[in-house]
């Protein structure tokens, strides 16, 4: 038993999205909605009221033809660790401890039955990854039968967001436990969006585990909040110190620059070391 516990290292589940592979097809968004019983309305034209745990943004380099270039940025919850593990922008402000940071997995959870809908967390999240249930969920006739039984639907008046398909983690842990294992294999726990992406642009795994692809791609500097060492990899709004666990990869400089804000004349990465000291 003792030995098992010492082998039991905390995980930091994270994601790398290769923006040079993403075609903007939206499969990840669809898979996410289906997996997580995300509710929708008849009219979804107002995107400020749509619940999209995973949302694909389209950006351009603003240049005229023939230099025009576009890029799609899928944006799930970034599962921010904050400046010190667990001090995520949203978790730190929730007055009712209805959203929590797991030191075991690094996943930022949302406790729907405890959230009382003050929306402070939404004000805190710079990625707009949090969504409020302005309405009660109403499913088209018969669709209840197709809901995922492992995910509770949310009631009106609470906030929800991407959970890194936590139910899949639980299922995988249960299975492993029954088989007498403590550790999960890399492919045993994968998010719905990762599996749905036809371009294979999304990679998911444990950033702490050197054998996992996410670790190899990012080469995270764990002493500095997991900052990527791979120069092609970046995080959104790195300078704010949110320390996300969702990474983006692109060979295009303008795309990497769009990931953060810079003063006129400033170069990406110029002050990275400063903001985390």
């Amino acid at each position, binding site marked *: 038993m003792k030995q098992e516990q010492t082998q039991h290292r905390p995980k930091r589940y994270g994601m790398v999205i290769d923006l040079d592979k993403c075609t903007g097809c939206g499969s990840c968004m669809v898979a996410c909605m289906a997996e997580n019983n995300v509710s929708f309305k008849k009219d979804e034209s*107002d995107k*400020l*009221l*749509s619940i999209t745990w995973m949302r694909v*943004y389209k*950006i351009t380099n603003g240049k005229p033809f023939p230099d025009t270039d576009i890029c799609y*940025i899928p944006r799930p919850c970034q599962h921010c660790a904050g*400046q010190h593990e667990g001090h995520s*922008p949203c978790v*730190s*402000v*929730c*007055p*009712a*401890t*209805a959203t929590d940071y797991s030191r075991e997995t690094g996943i930022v959870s949302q406790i729907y039955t*405890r*959230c*009382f*809908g*003050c*929306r*402070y967390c*939404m*004000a*805190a*999240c*710079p*990625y*707009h990854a*949090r*969504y*409020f*249930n*302005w*309405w*009660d969920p109403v499913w088209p006739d018969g669709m209840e039968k197709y809901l995922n039984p492992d995910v509770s639907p949310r*009631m*009106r*008046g*609470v*906030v929800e967001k991407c959970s890194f398909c936590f139910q899949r983690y639980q299922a995988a842990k249960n299975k492993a436990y029954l088989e007498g294992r403590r550790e999960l294999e890399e492919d045993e726990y994968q998010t719905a969006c990762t599996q749905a992406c036809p371009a294979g642009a999304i990679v998911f795994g444990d950033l702490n585990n050197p054998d996992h692809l996410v670790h190899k791609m990012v080469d995270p500097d764990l002493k500095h909040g997991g900052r990527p060492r791979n120069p092609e990899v970046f995080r*959104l*709004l790195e*300078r*704010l*110190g*949110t320390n996300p666990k969702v990474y983006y990869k692109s060979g295009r400089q303008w795309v990497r*620059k*769009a*990931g*953060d*804000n*810079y*003063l*006129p004349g*400033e170069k990406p990465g110029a*002050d990275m070391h*400063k*903001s985390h000291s």
Partner: protein
Amino acid sequence: MDSALIPEGVKRCPTWKFLLALAIAGAVLLWGVVAMLMVWFKGLNQTNMNDYYGFALWIWADLAFIALGGGAFFTGLLRYIFGIKELKNIINYAVLIGFICYSSALLILAIDIGQPLRGWFIFWHANVHSMLTEVAFCLSCYFAVLCIEYLPLVLENRQLDKVPFFHNLSHNMHETMAVFAATGAFLSFFHQGSLGGVAGVLFGRPFAFRTGINIWPWTFFLFTWSAAAYGPCFTLFITWLTEKITGKKLVKDNVVELLAKIAGWMIITYVVAKIIDTVYWATVTAPSLGFKWTFFYSDNPLYGKWILLTEIVLCGIVPGLLLIFGPTRRNPAARVIALLLGVLGVSLNRWVMVLQVMAVPVMSFDKWVLYYPSWQEVATTLLPVAYGVILILISYRYLPIFPQEPELNPIAPYTPANGAEATAGGQAGDESETEAVGQAAPAGA
């Protein structure tokens, strides 16, 4: 009709006028109640808030009401702790206004949350690291203090005061008021501050984020300071408004001028701190996060640099100086303009710290999003205003709120000559009030 309830030595408007005023305010109140019920039963989809505007009109109203209600704790502090005796002539009204502001803020919070029945989770599952938790605890405690401060005043109603128990209770409570005033000031420091902290700790929102001391961002101190500075402005402004409406002088000039002068100094010192904070944020904090400060004031139809200038200069330096300089402070018109500017200034500050924070894009590929409230939001925000008016109407009519009123508005003893004048109005209420006062006067003397 209700003359037996009216305080001794003062005259009140005829009952019909009073009832008409109640009815008008009541209509607005009813409109607000309808909207409130719609929000409670149908949900927050009745508002124009959205996933970019999780905080909107209501949170602004909350912050603004609490800042404006700050007159209660600050005047209490000056009166009971610093022992400025003159202020006893305005403290009752400051407490009443504070009571209205704080109960309104609590009501709005109850409407604003998505699951009102779970509101108590904020206490039960409290996250002690959250500024909102601090707000909830201190706000509730301070509201209890305000109730305690308001209660003796209610007990001073002529009829209630006849009951020996109430009379003694109210008397004893007055004796211990310093304790409550101190508690109130202490609690206010924290909840006013933590309301500032609500915005200041948002390190994901560079427009709001502030560095600070330990866990407290600079906005923590700025909010407390501004509530102490501008709260009394609101108290004085409402006092002025009440005087205009009743057509009577209710508080002596020396009292008003004293509080106005203190408010003036508070405003000026606050504005200096605010300027330092703004400069530091604009030149150090924001650039370190990759933002030029002008970014927050450009490329959108509403939030321009004008808003910063209005807040700091027009609604900060100007009223501060007007209230500090004797000649302008003593000039009623200039003073009232200063008070009004102050009230607008602190409201604007709270607006900026809530609504502009939400409007500013943070990700480089995001956009400015503006918002306007739905009628339900407006109605529920006016609800507390109507409720406040009603409470003031009732309190002013039946409670001795202004200790100087009888002295400033002496009622001539009943003579056939002025009796004829009183009946000329043809209002039974008017007449009987005069009569009642006439009878009561010797007893009071």
